[in-house]
């Protein structure tokens, strides 16, 4: 996997920590999109859970070519480190005029890990227009502790992303992000290929940290979203501080004194 020249910057890692996803628009070339569409239409067999990436995707396969694209490989290396395993893969299809949407959900089951995370790659081999049921994403929802589709009552949230994108777009998602396949009101099938990756190494400073002190890092981590309640939005920032401390190994990092203040207990050790 080509990695070193396309690692994420600290600013982009902070964006991922705050928003729970990154998007790489039209990063996959047209010839590979064509090969991928043909493979997805034929059907792609599953792989055993936890299989090494290079075993799951043989040399020359479209999936291997996808994850070896420099921008994709560099981002994956930055997020889940060297030698991630493939949790599972799936082809997702939203049928034409199907009449319903998926409920808003997080994948798998409630996941309380605070010092590790999985990444889900979503790849769109063709253009997704507004009426094709592009994935619904809720930025900044990934640290909320909810279980699968218990969030199904939430139909719309301010600031949600109703994905439209050019062919060859890749999303990289934190495992906890709220999302769902929207209702496809078009006459065309809408495809998406998903791969879930599990890290096999500690997720600490895996990206290009040259810009770690850039004020834009703190600015990214301080982002609030239009659907946040005032009070809970502050807790989101607090939880991001904890995540950033874990990702950087720097337990002094803070934003506006939020964490330092509430842990200051002079003379107390327990």
């Amino acid at each position, binding site marked *: 996997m080509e990695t070193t020249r396309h690692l994420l910057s600290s600013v982009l890692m902070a964006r991922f920590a705050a928003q729970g996803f990154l998007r790489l628009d039209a990063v996959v070339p047209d010839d590979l999109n064509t090969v991928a569409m043909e493979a997805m239409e034929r059907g792609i067999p599953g792989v055993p859970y936890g299989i090494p990436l290079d075993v799951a995707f043989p040399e020359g396969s479209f999936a291997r070519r996808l994850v070896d694209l420099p921008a994709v490989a560099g981002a994956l290396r930055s997020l889940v480190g060297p030698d991630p395993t493939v949790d599972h893969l799936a082809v997702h299809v939203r049928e034409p005029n199907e009449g319903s949407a998926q409920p808003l959900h997080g994948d798998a089951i409630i996941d309380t890990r605070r010092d590790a995370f999985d990444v889900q790659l979503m790849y769109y081999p063709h253009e997704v227009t507004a009426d094709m049921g592009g994935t619904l994403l809720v930025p900044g929802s990934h640290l909320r502790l909810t279980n699968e589709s218990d969030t199904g009552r939430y*139909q719309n*949230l301010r600031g949600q992303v109703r994905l439209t994108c050019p062919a060859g777009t890749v999303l990289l998602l934190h495992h906890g992000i709220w999302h769902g396949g929207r209702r496809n009101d078009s006459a065309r099938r809408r495809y998406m290929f998903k791969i879930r990756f599990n890290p096999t190494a500690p997720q600490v400073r895996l990206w290009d940290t040259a810009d770690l002190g850039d004020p834009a890092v703190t600015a990214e981590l301080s982002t609030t979203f239009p659907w946040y309640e005032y009070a809970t939005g502050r807790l989101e920032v607090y939880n991001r501080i904890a995540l950033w401390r874990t990702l950087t190994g720097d337990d002094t990092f803070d934003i506006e004194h939020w964490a330092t203040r509430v842990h200051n207990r002079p003379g107390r050790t327990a």
Partner: protein
Amino acid sequence: MKQQVLVLYLSSSALDDRVVGWASYDGTGRTKPTTGDGDHPPYETGVDALRDGWRLFQASQLIPPYPGHEYDTSFLKHEFFFEKLE
């Protein structure tokens, strides 16, 4: 008599605060609201819904955090159910 239900999620526990999320269910069958079907809320605040004839029939309680989980975030806290009957 058929019921239409509107669920609004507000920025705080105050009914006149800003809408941050919404859902609706239509017992008349005239509309079929679903997940991700719009980016603009039907009202700016909960009180705006009252002014348009929606009857509030449930509001979420204010529950203190469980000890040890004061910083956890989960579901939206300020949920208000409204109805119209016809």
